[in-house]
């Protein structure tokens, strides 16, 4: 049909099928890619637009229904070029992190504000309730909508004061206008589409027939890719020794959702071909489901080289645990189970590949461009320098975009067909085929003497690593180090095993097994405190790691150990919240209040292995400075943080700095955006690059540090005392590649040592510390838990940007809350965002952030990391609060209403119907 609609005030025409989703018409026909697609099912609200002034999901409206009507998209909010008041408020409050939900949030808020210019919080929650966000924890979004009127932007920080300032995101405006290019937002016009065909079975053998009939019936089908088409190695994986995952399965599938074929052709054709019509003969086999089944005698081996399904074991032994427990005044123990958790970033995987001569370019969402480059070179059988990775803006990662997803498929297709090839995962496909948080089965014992001094931690965790290795070895190595918590424990035995099953591969997810670990140990510490009659916070305080003390790995900590200040910062709220809960619990109401508390530590960067970052800063002939950063901003704000560090390390104004980010042809390897490492490691690399550039300038000026270098044009002036000199940049030869005349380079690799067979060594150069306090209300009759408030104290070394640090804490708390109360991924059952529940805007409470800055001498301006620490203590704090409210311990996550109610009834505490 010929469609005519008014979009953002202008009449637009499009030729389209009448049933086509309005979201597709806007994006594909009208080029308005500011409207995002997160689920195509009305579950996430990312595609929210105004239709005749009312917010609707553009994925649920047919083109025919939109005909003749008025549509406003995010592009219509800032048509004059300047941000509107609502967008400015989002920028000021840090309400956009990755930015993928931002257009939907803005449109929902616009709908509200048009009807109600001064809404209260409840109205904001109701109006925005249909849009899911996975990054921000919603609180800064709510604050922004409530604060639209106050439109004054913060002034740019003066030279030398960028670090520590609440600088708006460098890339914030693009996220607020819809101009940011996420993975599905750009592709060459002549790109073919690729659709992966995936296994409906968790374990099966299959044989492929001839595709001749298919090609005859579908002329738009350009190629069917099978494993036989992979030019190089059909194996990928994170560790050089653990590459066990095929890009396309070879006659056998090991999990439901594994790719067996890829159809490449025009979009309509690859969508129209039903899986059932393909010549695939399946032989379904009984799957290995769960850890116990995988370890049972006679269980089928997933991988021949691992006959017992045991991928890897991590181990830490210090002292004599058995003797210590035998002699202890108090011992507590428990067994815990956690489940698969889905990252649920609102952006499904997407991207395109393009062959240019003997090189391949990949534009896709990723957290690790250089690892992608090297892996794809192996898969294509070419050199790494023949692969160029162009990271898109990333619509949420959280660890889930560290592994390859669609990149091998589009790369192989584009390589063989010599045509650009694009692919966009559907939400169910994204959920079924990409990694999850490892389910854990944990047994732990903790022992103390009568005064509450910790004597021993005995910890055993089995992690379900699913069908392929992915980051299982990282979990197995990181968990034992963290198993004894941020405490002095003389006797520790900690074992962590990663075990193969026929389930979705478990990989990296914010914390690498440490959140699951903390669920066990931090709730056990509460039990220990109760048993000994010691206040739970005091018990932690008495045992807290401090500067100069040794960890369970024997590593003597340096100066940056901020646990004690975190605990002390929480004390006033700990006392007042308990008093308030006691007051609210007077009488025999059906809703009981409780306060819980948990602490954590977290090693920044990779465990005991080199993980360097290299940063470059260029200065061109006109005096313009450019930071070349290979560190991917996945919404956490790395771009802004690194620019703030860069400005102050150079002594240059932030406003004049340019950024080139991600492109592997133009930036150096900064390592992965994972392990909470970019601020600490890449930030330190930026300070070194800045020092290098300053050195070169000073040498040209014939001076040395300390000196004041004034950037901002040509020439650059250098002042040392009364001595004023200048460097004429125009006289210097320019690089062909960058146009820069000077370039500073800096590399930082955090100093660590390998762990010996007892897990002894210095696995991390820096540790973050934190403690969080959760206040909950439990409905005894229904088992529902409402988190009413979270207070989070975090030692971040130095808050380079307090707004962004708070944003990370809010988002981590929201994910921890989801893990504690509602998130449970079940293959084949919860492959969408209405059966898989993440917190909505109404589930995340007020979060107070208390920032502690125990500067790390190795970190840039003392900074450490915050990404993962933000999430680790939340779930155990909530579980402890549930116990405080009800006297019932939940040892299986998530603590859904039925599990809580069942536990209450079992404990004789729920006999009420009313």
């Amino acid at each position, binding site marked *: 049909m010929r469609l005519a609609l008014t979009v953002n005030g202008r009449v637009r025409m499009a030729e389209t099928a009448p049933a086509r989703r309005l979201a597709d018409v806007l994006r594909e026909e009208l080029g308005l890619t500011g409207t995002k697609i997160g689920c*195509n099912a009305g579950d996430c609200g990312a595609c929210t637009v105004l239709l005749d002034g009312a917010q609707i999901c553009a994925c649920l409206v*047919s083109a025919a229904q939109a005909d003749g009507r008025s549509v406003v998209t995010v592009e219509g909010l800032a048509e004059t070029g300047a941000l509107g008041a609502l967008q400015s408020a989002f920028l000021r409050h840090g309400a956009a992190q990755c930015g993928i939900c931002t257009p939907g949030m803005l449109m929902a808020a616009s709908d509200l504000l048009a009807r109600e210019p001064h809404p209260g919080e409840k109205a904001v929650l109701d109006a925005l*309730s*249909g849009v899911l966000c996975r990054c921000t924890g919603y609180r800064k979004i709510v604050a922004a909508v409530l604060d639209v009127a106050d439109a004054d932007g913060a002034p740019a920080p003066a030279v030398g004061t960028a670090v520590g300032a609440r600088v708006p995101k460098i890339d914030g405006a693009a996220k607020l206008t819809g101009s940011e290019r996420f993975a599905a937002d750009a592709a060459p016009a002549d790109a073919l589409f690729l659709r992966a065909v995936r296994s409906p079975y968790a374990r099966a053998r299959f044989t492929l027939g001839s595709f001749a009939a298919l090609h005859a019936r579908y002329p738009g089908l350009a190629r069917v890719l099978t494993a036989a088409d992979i030019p190089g190695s059909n194996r990928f994986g994170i560790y050089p020794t653990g590459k066990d995952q095929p890009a396309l399965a070879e006659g056998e599938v090991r999990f439901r959702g594994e790719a067996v074929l890829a159809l490449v052709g025009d979009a309509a054709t690859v969508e129209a071909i039903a899986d059932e019509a393909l010549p695939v003969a399946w032989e379904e086999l009984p799957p290995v489901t769960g850890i116990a089944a995988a370890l049972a005698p006679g269980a089928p081996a997933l991988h021949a080289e691992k006959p017992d399904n045991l991928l890897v074991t991590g181990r830490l032994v210090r002292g004599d645990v058995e003797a210590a427990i035998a002699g202890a005044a108090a011992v507590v123990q428990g067994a815990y189970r956690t489940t698969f958790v889905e990252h649920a970033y609102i952006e499904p995987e997407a991207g395109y590949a393009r062959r240019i001569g003997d090189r391949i370019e990949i534009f896709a969402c990723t957290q690790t461009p250089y690892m992608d480059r090297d892996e794809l070179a192996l898969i294509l059988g070419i050199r790494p320098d023949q692969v160029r990775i162009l990271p898109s803006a990333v619509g949420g990662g959280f660890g889930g975009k560290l592994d390859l997803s669609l990149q091998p498929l589009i790369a192989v297709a584009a390589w063989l067909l010599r045509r650009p090839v694009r692919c966009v995962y*559907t939400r169910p496909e994204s959920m079924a085929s990409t990694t999850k948080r490892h389910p854990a089965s944990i047994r732990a014992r903790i022992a103390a003497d009568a005064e509450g001094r910790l004597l021993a931690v005995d910890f055993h965790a089995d992690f379900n690593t699913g069908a392929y290795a992915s980051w299982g070895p990282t979990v197995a190595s990181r968990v034992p180090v963290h198993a004894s918590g941020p405490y002095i424990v003389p006797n520790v035995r900690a074992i962590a095993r990663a075990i193969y099953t026929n389930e979705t591969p478990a990989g990296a997810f914010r914390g690498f097994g440490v959140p699951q670990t903390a669920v066990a140990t931090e709730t056990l510490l509460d039990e220990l405190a109760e048993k000994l009659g010691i206040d739970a916070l005091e018990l932690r305080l008495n045992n807290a790691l401090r500067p100069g003390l040794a960890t369970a790995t024997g590593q003597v900590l340096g100066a940056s150990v901020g646990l004690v200040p975190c605990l002390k910062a929480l004390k006033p709220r700990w006392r007042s919240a308990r008093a308030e809960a006691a007051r609210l619990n007077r009488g025999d109401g059906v809703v009981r209040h409780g306060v819980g508390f948990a602490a954590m530590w977290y090693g920044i960067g990779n465990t005991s292995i080199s993980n360097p970052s290299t940063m470059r800063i260029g200065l061109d002939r006109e005096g313009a400075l450019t930071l070349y950063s290979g560190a991917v901003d996945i919404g956490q704000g790395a771009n802004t943080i690194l620019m703030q560090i860069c400005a102050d390390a150079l002594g240059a104004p932030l406003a004049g700095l340019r950024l080139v980010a991600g492109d592997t042809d133009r930036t150096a390897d900064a390592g992965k955006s994972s392990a909470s490492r970019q601020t600490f490691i890449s930030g330190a690399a930026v300070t070194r690059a800045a020092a290098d550039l300053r050195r070169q300038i000073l040498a040209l000026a014939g001076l040395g540090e300390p000196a004041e270098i004034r950037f901002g044009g040509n020439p650059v002036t250098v002042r040392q005392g009364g001595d004023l000199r200048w460097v004429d940049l125009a006289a210097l030869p320019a690089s062909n590649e960058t146009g820069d005349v000077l370039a500073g380079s800096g590399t930082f690799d955090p100093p660590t040592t390998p762990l010996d067979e007892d897990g002894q060594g210095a696995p991390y150069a820096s540790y973050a510390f934190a403690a969080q306090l959760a206040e909950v209300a439990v409905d005894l009759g229904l088992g529902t838990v409402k988190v009413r408030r979270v207070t989070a104290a975090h030692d971040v070394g130095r808050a380079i940007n307090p707004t962004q640090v708070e944003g990370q804490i809010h988002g981590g708390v929201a994910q921890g809350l989801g893990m504690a109360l*509602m998130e449970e991924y079940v293959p084949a059952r919860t492959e969408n965002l*209405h059966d898989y529940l993440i917190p909505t805007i109404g*589930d995340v409470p007020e979060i107070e952030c208390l920032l502690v800055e125990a500067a790390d001498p190795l970190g840039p301006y003392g900074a450490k990391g915050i990404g993962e620490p933000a999430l680790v203590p939340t779930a155990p704090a909530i579980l402890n609060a549930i116990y405080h409210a009800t006297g019932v311990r939940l040892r299986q996550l998530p603590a*859904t209403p039925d599990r809580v109610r069942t536990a209450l009834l079992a404990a004789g505490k729920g006999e009420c119907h009313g």
Partner: protein
Amino acid sequence: MGLYLRPTDLAEALAALAESPMTVLAGGTDFYPARVGRALDDDILDITALASLSGIADAGDHFRIGATTRWSDIIAAELPNWFDGLKLAAREVGGVQIQNAGTIAGNLCNASPAADGVPPLLALDAAVELASRGGKRVLPLASFITGNHRTARAPQELLTAVLVPKPRCKARAGFAKLGARKYLVISIVVAAAVLEVAEGRIAAARIAVGACSPVAQRLRDLEGTLRGRRCAPGLGRTVEAVHLAGLAPIDDIRGTAVYRSDAARTLIARLLDDLAGAAA
């Protein structure tokens, strides 16, 4: 690609349905989610341009709610207080985007066991009007939904309106939903009640529970027990496990069967207490 008809005249729509079976499309909130990643190749009858199917009207002894009336229309409509349960339910159907798109007939025709719109309409004793080229028929809602995602609608029929009879006495209505998060949640249990009260006593009670059986059910035994009782605080204590014996809840990811029965009892008891405490 299939047919796509978007008539403005009901007769035209019914003629098309008489011709061949088509997928009826209105708010799209169930249609599109069922087709993620799939070609849109259905023969579609889009009924959103049928003006006669939209809106709420007082028709004397009953209210007539047009098939394509959206949840946000119901929220915004000025209606007697015995519609309060339906209005509360309307606010729980997805987020505002879904309320702005989803229709009352779509909720009924989709026939999800957990549909939030069904228990309040059962408690209102609603009926549905089905039209075809051959004429019209009216079915009680309880007879219309025949199973999990199954209805009595014949392929050539269109659900044109929901008919809600006016209560004989002063009535009050409530709605309660249990889910594992605040917004956008498929109910673990959903319940609705309408109490007709005369001289402080319950003249008629209608209570319905969803997500605890393939089709939401009225609790007739409980309704009988409540009839004649004083509408006063403590009413919730009337509810006993035996009143829920006719439900057939299942174990699924949202909760166990045992939990559902237990929670249904609690929800209904609280609902009755709330209604008993509310001003008539």
